[in-house]
């Protein structure tokens, strides 16, 4: 099993992701440079946070046309697991691998703080170790994290259980007060229809150990590993 971590110019959570997966989860990881046209032998691709290409034009818009994105789109179409965190989420929406988009926070400020999110769907490769309704602590750090999609898309995502995380309070209430950035319906993370591509604004890799808060972020990566192990057993049978 191997994770690939994409490095764009301006990625700045790449080493955090590497540390989380390689050192804490103890799964081999390797870099994928944005100029690579192809890659092989990866079971999960991580698009880390940062400010790819200085966030010029729109967040994620330029990175979306990096050579590596073609390979990632192919990988995702074949069912490969892709997780985009923060700026990685923004790149995935620009690449149309995920619906909707992320716009400037309602409050206009860059927000950097501890945040609580509620797990909405545990039947995904990314949340199998969580419980539905479980409240996780994960830091957020973004200026453009306000999730937006029109009503039709939101309804379709609700129907397909594509909304994976919502901003909540400690009791799991998804109130307006618990919504840090004005995201529609408190959306913090979504997946595609097939369920193999996840995007989320909070940073699981920044709460990967107890000393960083609670270690809740570990659940996301451990879920991926559990899913991939099960897949491998099924394939071998």
């Amino acid at each position, binding site marked *: 099993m191997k994770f690939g971590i994409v490095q764009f110019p301006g990625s700045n959570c790449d080493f955090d992701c590497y540390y989380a997966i390689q050192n804490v989860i103890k799964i081999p990881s390797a870099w994928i440079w944005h100029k690579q046209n192809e890659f092989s032998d990866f079971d999960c691709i991580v698009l880390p946070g940062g400010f790819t290409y200085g966030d010029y034009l729109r967040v994620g818009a330029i990175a979306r046309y990096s050579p590596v994105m073609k390979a990632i789109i192919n990988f995702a179409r074949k069912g490969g697991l892709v997780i985009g965190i923060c700026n990685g989420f923004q790149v995935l*929406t620009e690449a149309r691998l995920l619906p909707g988009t992320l716009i400037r926070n309602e409050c206009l400020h860059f927000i950097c703080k501890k945040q609580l999110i509620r797990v909405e769907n545990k039947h995904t490769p990314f949340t199998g170790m969580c419980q539905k309704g479980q409240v996780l602590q994960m830091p957020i750090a973004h200026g453009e994290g306000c999730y937006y999609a029109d009503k039709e898309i939101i309804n379709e995502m609700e129907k397909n259980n594509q909304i994976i995380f919502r901003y909540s309070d400690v009791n799991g209430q998804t109130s307006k007060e618990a919504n840090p950035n004005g995201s529609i319906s408190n959306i913090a993370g979504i997946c595609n229809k097939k369920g193999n591509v996840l995007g989320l604004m909070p940073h699981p890799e920044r709460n990967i150990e107890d000393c960083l808060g609670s270690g809740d972020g570990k659940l996301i990566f451990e879920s991926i590993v559990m899913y991939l192990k099960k897949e491998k057993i099924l394939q071998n049978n």
Partner: protein
Amino acid sequence: MWSVRIDIKLKKGVLDAQGKATHNALYSLGFSDIRDVRIGKLIEIQLEGNSREEVSKTVQDMCQKLLANPVIEDYSYKIEEQ
């Protein structure tokens, strides 16, 4: 040579946080008659092309692929021969 001026605006209904903040700032300066402020982008491009139609097609392609995000933005453009 052609000169193209592309206007990109947020779609109606999409929250324009920058516009809202600017509205508030203008209001506090005493411009109390303002009803709405929306902030967009202006992109100017110089390009070669054989005809206005060809340039128009290229610009549309650019807007749809990169310059505008159809989820939240509308675009319009004007082409001038230089």
